């Protein structure tokens, strides 16, 4: 088997609210620049997915309407294969609306609960149409040695973690999961969920490389990635960190 990064992009034409495909562009480019072949398959409504055909699954964000359309399909057609893939060491990155759907359920402002994938032990509640959305620049400190993650959040729902999920990081600036407990995102096994929406990976190359490495290690344990210059990445991080730290969002 030749070393290849196999990405499956779930609902690229439905859950694509905030430049989500930026993450796919970045994963693809960073792997290709290391001489690693990349395949990106797209799985939309009604498509069946093969847990052995991809090592990194990506789910982006959508508006309530799109999220409702996606939720039923996710639970009916995608949950089983995704569970199997995760059990086997695959990576899942779920962003914003996709993060909410990766949890146990989403309780909207009005209407019935949306069932989730249950890949992460968390639930999300929208406190009501009058409640302000949590919007702005977001900086978090992940656990371990990784540098802060920077990005933007915009969500109405408030997410609460159960005992089976660890937070992705501690909020340094911004709101995070619910604007109250100071935590952001969730991790369990190789499933990552976060409100750092849309193009999370361009300005967080260390995290992008972590995902690539973990996805490759499913079939190539101990794989190492040679470093990239990341000059513009560093500039973009510095610029936004300087602004956010000076005047927290």
């Amino acid at each position, binding site marked *: 088997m030749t070393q290849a990064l196999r990405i499956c992009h779930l609902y690229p034409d439905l859950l694509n609210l905030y430049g989500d495909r930026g993450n796919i562009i970045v994963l693809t480019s960073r792997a290709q620049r290391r001489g690693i072949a990349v395949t990106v398959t797209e799985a939309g409504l009604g498509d069946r997915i093969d847990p052995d055909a991809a090592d990194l699954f990506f789910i982006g964000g959508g508006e309530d309407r799109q999220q409702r359309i996606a939720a039923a399909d996710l639970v009916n057609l995608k949950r089983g294969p995704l569970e199997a893939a995760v059990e086997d060491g695959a990576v899942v990155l779920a962003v914003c609306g996709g993060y909410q759907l990766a949890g146990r359920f989403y309780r909207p402002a009005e209407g019935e609960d949306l069932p989730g994938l249950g890949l992460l032990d968390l639930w999300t509640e929208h406190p009501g149409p009058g409640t302000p959305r949590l919007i702005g620049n977001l900086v978090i400190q992940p656990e371990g040695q990784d540098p802060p993650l920077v990005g*933007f959040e915009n969500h109405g729902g408030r997410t609460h973690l159960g005992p089976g999920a660890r937070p992705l990081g501690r909020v340094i600036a911004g709101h995070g999961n619910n604007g109250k407990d100071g935590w952001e995102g969730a991790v369990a096994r190789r499933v990552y969920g976060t409100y750092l*929406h849309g193009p999370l990976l361009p300005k967080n190359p260390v995290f992008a490389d972590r995902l690539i490495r973990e996805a490759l290690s499913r079939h190539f344990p101990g794989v190492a990635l040679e470093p990239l210059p990341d000059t513009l990445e560093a500039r973009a991080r510095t610029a936004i960190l300087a602004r956010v730290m000076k005047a927290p969002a």
Partner: protein
Amino acid sequence: MYHDEGITPDGGGTGLSDRTVPFDLRLSAAIALGKATATLSRSFHRGGGTTMPGRVARAVEPRLVQMVARRLALGSVVVAGTNGKTTTAHVLAHIMRTLGHRPVHNRAGANLAAGIASALVEHADLRGRPQGDLGIFEVDEATVPRVVPALAPRVAVFTNLFRDQLDRYGEIDYIAGLWRAAGKGLAADLVSVANGDDPLVYEAVRGLPGRLVTFGIEDERHALPAIEHTAEARYCYRDGTPYEYAFTYFGHMGQYHCPACGVRRPVPDVAARDLTLHGPDGAELTITSGGEAARIRTVLPGLYNVYNILAAVAAALELGAPLARVGEALASFAPAFGRAERVVVDGHEVQMLLVKNPAGFNEVLRTVLAAGPLPAVLIAINDRIADGRDVSWLWDVDVEMLAGQVGRVVVGGLRAEDMALRLEYAGIPVEAIEVEHSYDRALRRALDRTGTSRLYVLPTYTAMLALRGVLEQWGAVRGFWET
């Protein structure tokens, strides 16, 4: 700038005599204070005083907007939508002025309630008589329900709905919902002029009271080879079924229909046919309406401006303008600032094309690249409230179009680094990307690289204002509030 052209400074010819307008002390005081605020804020260079006069005046007389607006002899037109409001309002004002009317309208971007009140304060005399006969007001998407009932418009124009400034408004469904909610406050004789090629617009307005007039493009030669990934409206509003598109022109504009509920793109009442695009230099098209046709030439470039022209023409026809005269008027239209406006500075030609969201940015890129590779472009991205605070959308733009087509990209604005990173991932060599936060130096660097050809400047809204300020200092254009 032409905002106020044709409106006589002494307020002559309002069409209303002193006897028909009772003196109202509170209204007069509100207008006097508003005018004083405008003078003060201009002399302190506080952004031209586009909103404060209205705020002050409305604090004194909250009903100011309806009191002054109802005295406009021909009534009012409101223009709503994500893109093209300013250009549509300006084209319509130009047509109506050419036909001998005296439109009163709000300044570009001052499209919240206070901006509209400011415009009325500025264009009214102390008795509250408007110095014109027709109101043309661009209204911010989310302001529609609050402002439209007060203006009681004859014609409401809906240009398009794109994801834009989501951080301000939340989600696109919410805006469409606001428009539908606004319908309750509208008069039964209202005419809605709406983009029928945009399924989000069509769904939002077809329940409104009054009559619906649709416009659209009827020229399949300009269809895109494939639907863009930026297309917003892939699923029917009502039942969530995927729309079937015969084709799209850009974004989600095109010939759609829902196989489940049967809703389909309407045959347009006002249509653009036999369209020829001349890249950034404009377009030629035939506009048809009710069996009549007029061949039109315009300096406004790109398909997005064809929609703006259609919107303005459809509104003008509803106000009684004859199609032939409309065609003549369009030939003499010069663009609004930042909207494909061309200026000359130090012997260089500079053309600014505003970028606000992915579909619009893509159209601008296609337009400026139509004539072949460019030595340099300047892209300036800000994230102030008027630009949208979230720049994630840059990753939905097909920046890849620039790869191999541009010698150098100078990037400016508060989010210059984000744009630079986007360019790098789009395949522009890092050596060809230059980050320059000073607007002055960014323009200078880009002009140096452009040589004798035209420099295209692609800014977000507030970056456009700043760059225009620099060009003004260099003697290219005058302040938009000074004319």
